[in-house]
């Protein structure tokens, strides 16, 4: 399992939430909406590139639209390895957050 950083995890979760239709702008929008913070588009691109190199997301080229000046989107989908990484992170969080067993 690839180790992922906090921001990588957030980007993965945003991409997962967009259910295979996420691209740079929509993933950034999702992150800003959920965190309430301003997120750099450059940081999102850099993270998506890194996640793709790690095999945690896969990208495909979508259709061109008029509002994008006839340019196509790069659509990101969380891979099986990416989903496994997210589950692993969730499990670690749950274990760390669980109250310690009381010794008698």
């Amino acid at each position, binding site marked *: 399992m690839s180790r992922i950083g906090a921001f990588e995890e957030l980007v993965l979760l945003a991409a997962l939430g967009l259910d295979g239709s996420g691209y740079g*702008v929509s993933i950034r929008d999702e992150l800003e909406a959920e965190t309430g913070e301003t997120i750099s588009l450059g940081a999102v691109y850099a993270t998506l590139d890194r996640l793709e190199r790690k095999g945690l997301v896969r990208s495909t080229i979508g259709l061109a639209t008029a509002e994008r000046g006839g340019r196509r989107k790069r659509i990101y989908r969380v891979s099986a390895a990416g989903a496994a990484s997210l589950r692993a992170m969730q499990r670690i969080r749950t274990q760390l957050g669980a109250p310690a067993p009381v010794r008698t």
Partner: protein
Amino acid sequence: MPDALSLVAWVVDPDRREEVLGDLCELRARESVTAFWGDVLGVCLRAPRLRRWAGTAAALLLLGVAVMARDPRHRIVTARDAAGAFVLEFDGLRVVRATLDGAPVPAERLVQENGRVVIRGGAGNAGDLNIRLRPDGSFYWRSRAPQTLPTP
């Protein structure tokens, strides 16, 4: 004012250009000018291509600084003769400082003229210490007499 999309097109990797320009085109229609330029700058600064250029520029700058810091024109030479050691600090062919028997020579006692350096009173009772400089940076001098300790 430069066109933002041209700037981004120039900076981002060609294989990512279409989607990045498309995203920015979409954002330009809905964001304030400030927010849009913030995104443009963010994308440019994070572009691997620009980072590679910045890395190369930084390496060249460091190399330049290292070369300047290690100025071959600046050198310190320690010389010895029968009377002891003296140190000459050169900047090119010019002696900028001297130390005689461990003590700095005052500037007024250090005279340089036409390939010759004179340390006034540098040879003890014999008078001045005359040092001849060669164009290649080497130098020679008449050995000073050994110092004699005063008898009690």
